[in-house]
């Protein structure tokens, strides 16, 4: 386990790269889905009114 975490001494480079990528991809997914839901809700509200 420790060997895995240390990434051959390159932990300080490998893990931030994975963390940044995870944040970037997850951020895009969350923002995109939030905008979709918001648009859908707004249009439904408009059509019901």
């Amino acid at each position, binding site marked *: 386990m420790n060997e895995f975490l240390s990434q*051959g001494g*390159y932990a300080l*480079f490998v893990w931030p*790269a994975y963390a*940044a990528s995870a944040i970037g991809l997850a951020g895009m*997914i969350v923002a995109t889905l939030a905008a*979709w839901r918001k648009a859908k809700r*707004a249009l439904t509200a*408009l059509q019901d009114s």
Partner: protein
Amino acid sequence: MSIFELANPKRFMEVSGLVLPWIAAAAALALVVGLILGFRVPPDYQQGETIRIMFLHVPAATTAMMAYGAMAVASAVGLINRHPLADVAAKTAAPLGAVFTALGLITGSLWGKPMWGAWWVWDGRLTSFLLLLLLYLGYIALGSAIEDETRSARACAILAIIGAVNLPIIYFSVTWWTTLHQANSIFAGKIAPVFLWPLFLMMGGYTLLFFSLWLVRIRTEILNRRARSVMLSRAAG
């Protein structure tokens, strides 16, 4: 069915709604398997464990360039055929492309420091890739600066098309100029086969993720415009 039938927003909503779940599922599968395989390959004989950064860096960079290419093509179609859906497609690709570009730069920097001894160098590849980020940001800024939808789309389309010149510059930069960045090696057979599987899966996953998110964003913009036209027609009536 021709591509121009898809240009009808109603038809686009139907078809994209059908294919979207499959593309998204394929993206998730490719990313999960690619991630697992990426941590199971042995360290590279020269680059050690930092080779695992390649599985993030290369997919982010290639997706960023592909997204720009897609944006430029959509811009050209919007400019020539005057089709609003093409304008929407171009506009919605930009923020996604910008994030992929930023991820390419960040992971590249984290790979460059241990391997080259520098976070950043002003060579052809890195500089032209930074220009890609600036083009995306400029495109987004220009789009939000012009109020009128049609004029905004036209100005953005011209910027996107001119900026596309940067794509071959990025690609060939490592051939044209002296650089620390390694040469184009994926399709030159210079990568050990054991690394190719996780790399291709991650590249596929990133690409499919881009297309999934792009479709959702185009669909979102179609709904927003529908809502706007409902409001306008009510205000007029």
